[in-house]
């Protein structure tokens, strides 16, 4: 046995290795520049985009923009109702999608039997991600506005938007949960933990950064979407901030859409200023999630 061992072992001869480390390192360095260049390109493109907004919008930023209702006079025009509408829509749909999406992701990853049905749901969810937003608007129009008699109200908008961003939350949460090493689950089950205890105490904390990324992306999408709310909300001008789930509402992108469609150039600048406000508000709303993610991702490394 040992003679066979040695004869086969002798086939490993040093001469056959050509490690060429420095060449490989050079390739690596080139790629590093490619990666860096891509990141820089992304930042530059996005910087140009920002600049195309901030340039014309900067001088039009004012308190009035935040506190006034819309007006046909650009100097007086504000988007207070739209800001409140957007905040309610984003928070409402964010919370709803977070609960439903995380629940779905947990069910599919931790509870459901792996198999055809699971695959089908998976395909179905990715497919929902590709359904144009206007179709969600149609869905909301039929189901929430008409069938459930909610009318064109904030709550219908929230629910429609929640369905729209749900796939993003589900898919990102699922991937985050899937990336948690199985040994962690074994450790927990081995101590006599129930499924939920395992999920709640170990899987979710480890997966939390990824889940939060999904929430951040989802909220970003919710705040920028126009089409579905055009269908479900339909408003182009609301002078009052929403005062309950059943009030009519306006959102920032619709206000921006409305303004960009006006003939007066001032409104275009106002729209640009409104976009700046939108991004600041988005950043403020996301900052909680970003901070949490920062916190959790520093903690959980294995």
């Amino acid at each position: 046995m040992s003679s066979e061992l040695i004869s086969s072992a002798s086939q490993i001869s040093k001469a056959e290795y050509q490690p060429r480390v420095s060449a490989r390192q050079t390739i690596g360095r080139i790629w590093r520049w490619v990666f860096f260049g891509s990141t820089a390109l992304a930042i530059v493109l996005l910087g140009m985009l920002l600049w195309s907004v901030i340039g014309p919008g900067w001088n039009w930023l004012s308190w009035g923009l935040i506190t006034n209702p819309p007006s046909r006079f650009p100097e007086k025009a504000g988007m207070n109702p739209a800001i409140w509408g957007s905040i309610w829509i984003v928070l409402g749909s964010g919370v709803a999608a977070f609960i439903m999406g995380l629940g779905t992701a947990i069910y599919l990853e931790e509870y459901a039997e792996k198999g055809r049905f699971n695959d089908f749901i998976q395909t179905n969810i990715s497919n929902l991600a590709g359904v144009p937003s206007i179709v969600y608007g149609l869905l909301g129009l039929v189901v929430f506005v008409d069938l459930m008699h909610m009318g064109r109200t904030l709550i219908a908008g929230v629910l429609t938007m929640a369905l729209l961003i749900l796939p993003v939350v589900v898919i990102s949460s699922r991937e985050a949960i899937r990336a948690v090493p199985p040994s962690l689950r074994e450790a927990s089950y081995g101590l006599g933990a129930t499924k939920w205890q395992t999920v709640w105490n170990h899987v979710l904390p480890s997966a939390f950064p990824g889940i939060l990324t999904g929430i951040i992306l989802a909220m970003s999408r919710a705040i920028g979407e126009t089409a579905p709310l055009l269908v479900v909300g339909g408003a182009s001008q609301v002078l009052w901030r929403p005062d309950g789930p059943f009030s009519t509402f306006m959102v920032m992108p619709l206000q921006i859409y409305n303004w960009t469609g006006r003939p007066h150039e001032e409104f275009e600048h106002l729209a640009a200023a409104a976009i700046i406000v939108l991004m600041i508000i988005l950043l403020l709303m996301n900052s909680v999630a970003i901070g949490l993610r920062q916190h959790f991702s520093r903690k959980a490394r294995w």
Partner: protein
Amino acid sequence: MSSTATPLRPDNRPPLNLMGKRGRQRSEEVIRYALIACSLVTLLTTLGIIGILLFEAANFFADIPVWDFLTGRTWTPLFAGTQQEFGVLPIVVGTLMTSLVAACIALPIGLAAAIYLSEFANERARSVLKPVLEVLAGVPTIVYGFFALTFITPVILKPIFPDIGTFNGLSAGIAIGIMAMPTVASLSEDALRAVPRSLREAAYGLGATKFETTARVVVPAAVSGIVASFILAVSRAVGETMIVAVAAGQSPAGQSGASGSMFDLMHSMQTMTGFIAYTFSSDVARGTTAFYSLFGVALLLFIMTFAMNLASQWVTKRYREEYD
């Protein structure tokens, strides 16, 4: 030692009952059903969408034969009389072409940025750049549309392609790509970072360079998450409405002034989503075939994305690596 060990004395173990405690099991069951209820939402959403689309599209297909719809090469549903034709191919091609351009921008740049952020950038840079990219995912898409129209086309593309049209599929595709890129970058970055350190150690320990470790161990181990981010990005590109409505123009490729081919990215190029959104909030009277055509298009788009997702799922299943 025995004094400190008292907490461990098994003096009061509960009586044996392998069936488990009723209360706990019930709460576990409640949780389970709540989770099932959550996942039914997505199923119901799909059913709802299919139901609505089928119901309304039936009105359309009652007037227009499916086969003509699928194979016709002229798309002029909103014109009157004999000029009205319902050949969907041009806008299908428009959707595919703009999405393809978008994918060619969003996927490689997004993945490369994700790799840079996860594997090369320091913690500070990462913690700043990632949220910045994500906020840009929140810019209303109409802004991207105008960015394409007023910046990408005249400033970037015009010098390269002198006879590019004001509206063109290319700039719209690029803008969609830019818009979808943060999704790829952000989600892929998470996936890459979730790869356990022990795997990187294994690769480095064998004399791999950082790039080899990244490209041949970390990325394959994270492929599931990366593909998921791709799917989301491509889905978003296919479903994007406002950008194409503004920047790609509203006449199907091959049907506007200067261009000849359905595949001409240099000129106006309508997409399926652009058509749906535009027609829905237009002055077209409800109940006409022209109006119902939007549901026919939406149904077809739904079927197309479904097929695409089936294919991508089949592919990922084959290449997924489980770790730990």
